[in-house]
C-alpha cells in the first residue's frame, strides 16, 4: 500500500500531527464526553495516530501489527465499559474528518486521501470486529458462571437429596443437572432424589426428555427419583405436547416429595 502519494500524506500528517490530533479528539469526543475525559481520549488517539502515520510511511514493519493490537485493546475496553458499537466505530472513523479538515488547502494530496479513507474504513472494521468479539466473550463468560451458580444439589435428609431448579431450563443446563445429581447420588449414597421444578417457567419436549432420562439413569444406578412442583401451565404443556411421563413418580410439592421419600425409607415424622 506504500506509494508516493501515501508517503507524502504520511509526511504531511507527521508534520501536522498535533493539529490533526486536536481535531480528532474533538470529533471523537462528541457524545461520549460524559464517559471518557478528553485527556484520556487524546492519549489513546495519539498512540493510534502515530502508529497510523508509521504504517502509512511504510518504514516500520511492526507498526501494522502494533496498530491492530492497540485497536483491539481499545475496542475491548470500550465494550467492557458499555459504549455502543456506533460510538466505538465512530471513534476511529472520525479520523477521516479530522484529516480532511487539515487537507482542505492542499489539493494535491486529495488522491492520497482517497486511499487513506479506505485504510481508515479497514481500521473501523477491525475495531468493530474486536468489539463484537469482546462482547461475545462477556456473554459466554456470564452464561458459564450462571450455569455454575444455578445447579445446587442439596442434602435434605440422610439418604435423600434434592435438586431445586430455578429459571429457564435448556438442554445444556438439564444435562449439567443430570450429571451433578448422579454424581451426588454416588457421593452421598442417597437412595432418593427429588427434582423440584417449582421455579421453572417453561418446559419443552427436549427438556422434558432430559428430565425423564435423568430419572431413568438414577433408577439404573439404584436410586428413586421424584419430580415435584410441576406448575399448572407446565402440566398443561406436557399433556398438550403428548410427552409421556410413564411410571415417573410426580408429587405436587417438594414437601410431598420429601414425605414420600421419608416413608419409603421407613422413616416417620412425629410431633416432638
Amino acid at each position, binding site marked *: 500500500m506504500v506509494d508516493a502519494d501515501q508517503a507524502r500524506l504520511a509526511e504531511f500528517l507527521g508534520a501536522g500531527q498535533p493539529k490533526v490530533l486536536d481535531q480528532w479528539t474533538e470529533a471523537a469526543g462528541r457524545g461520549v464526553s460524559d464517559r471518557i475525559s478528553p485527556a484520556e481520549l487524546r492519549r489513546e488517539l495519539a498512540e493510534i495516530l502515530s502508529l497510523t502515520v508509521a504504517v502509512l510511511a511504510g518504514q516500520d514493519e511492526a507498526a501494522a501489527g502494533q496498530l491492530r493490537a492497540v485497536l483491539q485493546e481499545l475496542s475491548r475496553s470500550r465494550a467492557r465499559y458499555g459504549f455502543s458499537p456506533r460510538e466505538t466505530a465512530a471513534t476511529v472513523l472520525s479520523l477521516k474528518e479530522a484529516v480532511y479538515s487539515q487537507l482542505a488547502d492542499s489539493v494535491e494530496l486529495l488522491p492520497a486521501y482517497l486511499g487513506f479513507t479506505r485504510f481508515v474504513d479497514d481500521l473501523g472494521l477491525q475495531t468493530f470486529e474486536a468489539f463484537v468479539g469482546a462482547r461475545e466473550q462477556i456473554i459466554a463468560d456470564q452464561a458459564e458462571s450462571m450455569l455454575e451458580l444455578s445447579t445446587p444439589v442439596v442434602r435434605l435428609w440422610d439418604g435423600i437429596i434434592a435438586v431445586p431448579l430455578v429459571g429457564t431450563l435448556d438442554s445444556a443446563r438439564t444435562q449439567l443437572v443430570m*450429571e451433578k445429581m*448422579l454424581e451426588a447420588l454416588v457421593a452421598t*449414597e442417597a437412595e432418593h432424589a427429588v427434582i423440584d421444578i417449582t421455579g421453572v417457567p417453561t418446559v419443552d419436549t427436549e427438556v422434558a426428555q432430559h428430565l425423564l*432420562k435423568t430419572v*431413568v439413569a438414577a*433408577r*439404573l*444406578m*439404584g436410586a428413586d427419583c421424584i419430580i415435584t412442583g410441576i406448575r399448572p401451565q407446565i402440566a398443561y404443556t406436557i399433556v398438550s405436547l403428548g410427552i409421556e411421563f410413564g411410571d415417573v413418580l410426580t408429587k405436587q410439592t417438594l414437601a410431598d416429595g420429601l414425605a414420600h421419600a421419608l416413608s419409603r425409607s421407613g422413616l416417620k415424622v412425629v410431633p416432638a
Partner: protein
Amino acid sequence: MERVPILKIGSTLLVSIQVDLQDQSVQQLQEDVAERIAATGAKGVIIDITAVEIVDSFIGRMLSMIGSMSRLFDAQTVLVGMRPAVAITLVELGLTLDGVQTALNTEKGLRLLSGRS
C-alpha cells in the same frame, strides 16, 4: 481372555467386575453365572460394576440377559455401583435393563436381596 470370578456368599452369588469388559468375557460370564446358579441353587446374584467405566449396547444387553436368565432359575439379579457416566450412556442407548434391579452399592444390594427372602 480374563475370566470374571464368581463368589458365593450364603445363597447369593457375588460377581465383581474388575476388568475392562470385552464382548467375549461378558458372554463367558453369562454362561458361568447360569452354571453356578444351577450348581449352587443361589437365590440372588449381585453384579458389582463399580470399576466399569465404559459400556456399550452389547454389554448392556448382556447384563440385561443375565437378569432375565437368572429369573428363570428363580434368582434375582441386582446390578450395583453403576457410575453416573455409565448410567447416562445406557439411557442414551435406550437400554433400561428390564428384569434387573439396581442398588447404589453392594451393601444396599445385599439388603435388597435379604429383604426379599
